[in-house]
């Protein structure tokens, strides 16, 4: 999900704008983005990770759920990244486990962003009592320890992919809502919105066709952060044993091998590196979009 959003935002205008219009702002944004080495690196890294999780299991061909070798044997001693406490291949586990981690991370990020957008846009557009009520609601979710709330929900409603996605989505949207609200308030006071209102545009049209497009850039950047956070969140939940016990994920592998940490560093180190690199790639892309949309901030540091 994360990878498609910035691509849509930046790639579409390239096809639309011929070389005669070099000053199209979107085109310039894309240029700055691609010139930014760390952003391009993040994009490549994310591409590699997606490729590895989609095609990796078929190419590598080892069953991640089967005991294939001596338990806790180190990397290079029969298997590339070693085996876990019941002799399952760590590399196979990482390749397959990435699917759950990435899907849960992406879907729950979309849910987070949608809830945040809806709450924030209503609060920012209607102001007054609607705003006050919605912001109290948002504050409630912002101050609660989100991981703990998600833990409680998953425990009570039994761990499954659906519950986990729902729990992550429901606890993390406050920041997006605040951001959307601020942007809506700023843009709603601009001339072109007043003009559209004077021309008789309805509220729904004003919100989603007039104001929303203008408020998207900072939200896209925040969405990258949210996606990274959702992946970390999923990892945390499955580390605590609140993932779907029948489906391997990176956090689950770490959690299951937690007790063998001192004797078999590879069992927790390798899946952790996978999580780290994925979130790092997304953060780099997010930073790149931010710099590209906001060149002034980039120069200042």
């Amino acid at each position, binding site marked *: 999900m994360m990878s498609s959003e910035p691509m849509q935002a930046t790639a579409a205008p390239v096809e639309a704008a011929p070389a005669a219009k070099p000053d199209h702002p979107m085109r310039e944004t894309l240029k700055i983005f691609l010139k930014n080495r760390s952003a391009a690196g993040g994009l490549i890294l994310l591409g590699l990770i997606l490729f590895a999780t989609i095609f990796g299991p078929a190419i590598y061909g080892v069953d991640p759920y089967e005991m294939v070798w001596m338990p806790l044997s180190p990397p290079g001693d029969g298997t590339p990244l070693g085996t876990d406490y019941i002799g399952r291949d760590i590399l196979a586990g990482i390749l397959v486990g990435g699917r759950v981690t990435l899907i849960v991370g992406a879907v729950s990020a979309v849910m987070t962003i949608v809830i945040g957008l809806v709450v924030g846009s209503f609060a920012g557009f209607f102001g007054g009592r609607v705003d006050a009520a919605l912001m109290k609601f948002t504050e409630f979710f912002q101050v*609660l320890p989100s991981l703990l709330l998600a*833990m*409680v929900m998953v425990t009570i409603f039994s761990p499954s992919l659906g519950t986990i996605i729902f729990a992550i989505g429901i606890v993390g949207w406050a920041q997006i809502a605040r951001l959307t609200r601020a942007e809506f308030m700023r843009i709603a006071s601009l001339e072109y919105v007043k003009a559209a209102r004077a021309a008789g545009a309805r509220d729904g049209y004003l919100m989603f066709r007039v104001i929303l497009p203008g408020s998207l850039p900072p939200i896209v950047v925040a969405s990258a952060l949210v996606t990274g956070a959702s992946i970390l969140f999923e990892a945390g939940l499955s580390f605590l044993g609140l993932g779907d016990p029948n489906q391997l994920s990176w956090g689950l592998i770490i959690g299951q091998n937690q007790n063998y940490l001192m004797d078999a560093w590879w069992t927790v180190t390798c899946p952790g590196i996978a999580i780290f690199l994925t979130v790092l790639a997304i953060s780099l892309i997010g930073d790149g979009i931010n710099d590209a949309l906001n060149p002034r901030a980039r120069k*200042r540091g």
Partner: protein
Amino acid sequence: MQTLRKLTPAFKRVLEAFGLVMAVVILNFLLIQMAPGDPVEVIVGEMGGASEELIAQLRQQYGLDQPVLHQLGIYLGKVLTGDLGYSYYFNTPVLDLLLQRVPATVLLCLSALFVAVLVGTFAGAFSARKPDGAGSHIVTVISLVGYSAPVFWIGMMLLILFASVWPIFPVAGMQSLRKPSGFAYYLDILHHLVLPTITLAMIYIAYYSRLARTSMIEVLGQDYIRTARAKGLPENKVIWKHALRNGLIPIVTMVGLQFGQLFAGAVLVETVFNWPGLGRLAYESILRRDYPTLLGILLFSAVLVMIANLLTDIAYRRIDPRMRKART
């Protein structure tokens, strides 16, 4: 409304905080209501079965034969009198269990916060002096790592490095098995505290150093800083005295907003380091499906977060003179 406006802002904040805690209580109630099976079935399950009579008696005792709103009233009354239920697994009232575990969590959270604010602010302010210098790039790299690595994994890596490869810190817990007496007792706890604190602080060092840098760069560009420099103040005094005071404001705001997340991080860190606080208790109660304890922790942490928020609000007014009058 008129009377509300007359109240002092501080008192209004207390009222708001109380309202939010009440909202958490209601949320807890709803979660229990929505959970598959009623609480009595859960309790009976925990006790390992019970007779029909006992079940009926429990139902009556918990008011489950009453309408939902009435039940909510009973629940609110219980919570307000400090009755958070009974943990059948630990065989203790939940409140006692929580109170036992609070000091460890507060110690861990506060020391992590202290380290994070201190290191983060210094790193950020330092790198703000030369936005394109090497220091600035190091801050960027460190903050990227802090953002991107799972906190429990950082803890495990520190354990492997500093408790196994180079064993200078203890592996787990808060105290050695043989408790030393006197001053050594506190040193022992401090020794155990180092790795969990660094782990938990890592995320926030990443966060605050970035925040401090951005805000310091902005503050250093303002007129009053130019004035301070023009009148010949030494650069160190300009940065650490004049600029930092304003540069700190966004950090204090953020600290206030993030107490909840800090606590959430503590759950993971305490699990990794076997730190005997509320977070570890949360993990244990998940393993046992001990709902009363889990819900009690949620409520308790909300109260802790509210108290912390109130304290930040006070700190905020102290740092920013404009807020002393203006804030509603």
